[in-house]
């Protein structure tokens, strides 16, 4: 059941569309032709009439007023107007349908557009779930969201009075954002070498890679094996990976660096040694006590000396007594 305010609202929208149809005329002529139109249309609606076609209505208005109808009002211009009309009609329907949901609807549409902008400007992978579009730029994301929320609320409160181009623009942005965000997960099947591979929890472990530079190869291997991290040995002199190197050589470099926390997929820790320099000249026991491994007790305290130590226990002197 429609009430008077509903008629007035519909009449205002219709009158606005009529003004848009007449926009090729001088502004003062349009103002004169449409002055008081809202009340006339509202009265007509109250009498049970339905809203007529806007284009025909504008033409009748011009004919009645004796204004020459320009021939250019056909073809592309007319098609553009029709498209704009459809967009605005959808906007009006969406606005009417969601008016009861405000302010939740205002928040939701701000969030949709924020996510859409995040998908474009933040340097995240397009295959990430839409909830995480601002994952790498959270502060900027929050800022953009707050700005959009402000605009959304302002727009929501003044929809009836907002300018036509504002409504047209806002509706287009919102519609485009929703379509892109909904469509995105369906077309993106990530290739194996994409960033998804790096971020996927199945293939990556977030782990502290221990620093093994400066200790012997044997100690480094043990530390990595305890963390179940694969490793390869690289000879810096020969510039090649080697299948075997004596454990006594010092690890000169490692890759990945300890500052990298993600350890992904098939990757191995590369332990760089230089076989041409000879083995580490430190005694093994010293190496154990001055390890550069992190404070992780697991890594530091469970290493086993690579050089076996033997303790010779001299037998105690025995005396033999003869009966």
């Amino acid at each position, binding site marked *: 059941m429609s009430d*008077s*305010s509903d008629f*007035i609202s519909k*009449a*205002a929208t219709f009158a606005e569309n009529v003004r848009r149809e007449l926009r090729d005329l001088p502004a003062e002529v349009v103002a*004169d*032709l449409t*002055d*008081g*139109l*809202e*009340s*006339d*249309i*509202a*009265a*007509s609606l109250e*009498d049970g009439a339905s809203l*007529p076609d806007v284009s*025909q*209505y*504008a*033409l*009748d*208005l*011009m*004919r*009645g*007023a*004796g*204004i020459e109808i320009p021939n250019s009002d056909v073809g592309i211009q007319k098609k553009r107007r029709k498209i704009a009309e459809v967009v605005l009609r959808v906007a009006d329907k969406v606005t009417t349908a969601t008016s009861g949901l405000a302010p939740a609807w205002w928040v939701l549409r701000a969030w949709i557009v924020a996510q859409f902008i995040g998908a474009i400007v933040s340097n995240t992978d397009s295959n990430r779930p839409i909830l995480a579009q601002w994952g790498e730029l959270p502060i900027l994301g929050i800022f953009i969201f707050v700005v959009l929320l402000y605009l959304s609320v302002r727009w929501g409160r003044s929809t009836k009075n907002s300018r036509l181009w504002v409504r047209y623009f806002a509706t287009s942005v919102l519609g485009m954002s929703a379509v892109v965000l909904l469509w995105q997960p369906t077309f993106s099947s990530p290739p194996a070498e994409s960033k998804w591979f790096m971020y996927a929890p199945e293939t990556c472990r977030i782990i502290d890679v221990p620093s093994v530079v400066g200790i012997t190869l044997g100690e480094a291997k043990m530390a990595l094996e305890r963390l179940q991290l694969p490793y390869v040995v690289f000879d810096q002199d020969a510039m090649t990976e080697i299948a075997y190197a004596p454990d006594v050589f010092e690890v000169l470099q490692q890759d990945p660096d300890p500052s990298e926390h993600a350890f992904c997929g098939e990757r191995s820790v590369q332990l760089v040694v230089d076989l041409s320099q000879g083995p580490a000249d430190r005694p093994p026991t010293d190496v154990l006590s001055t390890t550069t491994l992190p404070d992780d007790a697991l890594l530091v305290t469970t290493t086993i000396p690579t050089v076996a130590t033997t303790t010779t226990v001299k037998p105690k002197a025995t005396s033999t007594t003869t009966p």
Partner: protein
Amino acid sequence: MAHGSEQRIERSQLLKGVLDLATLAVLAEKDGYGYDVVRRLRHHGLTDVAEASVYGTLRRLFSLGLLTSYVVPSEEGPHRKYYGMTAAGHEWLNDQRTQWNEFQDVINSIVKTSTKGEKS
């Protein structure tokens, strides 16, 4: 279908020539706003008159100086633009009314004559 459509076109063509006169005639009774004029015209039998044509006609008659207009604000909704007759409007109406009556007599005479011919 096509026949009905043609009939409507003919009627609208007839209406074009007399809409100024009809509009002024209903406003001569009492001032009125746009839709009020439409309502009065429909009440007299012009049921298919296009609202926008009447509103355009009102603006044109106003610009010709035959009508005056004033705005009545409303607390419940948008303002209403009322139209009333000017002295020039009354003069024009009287002149047009005379012309219409003469024209109507001529047309009636022609139509009646042709009807008699058809019957015989």
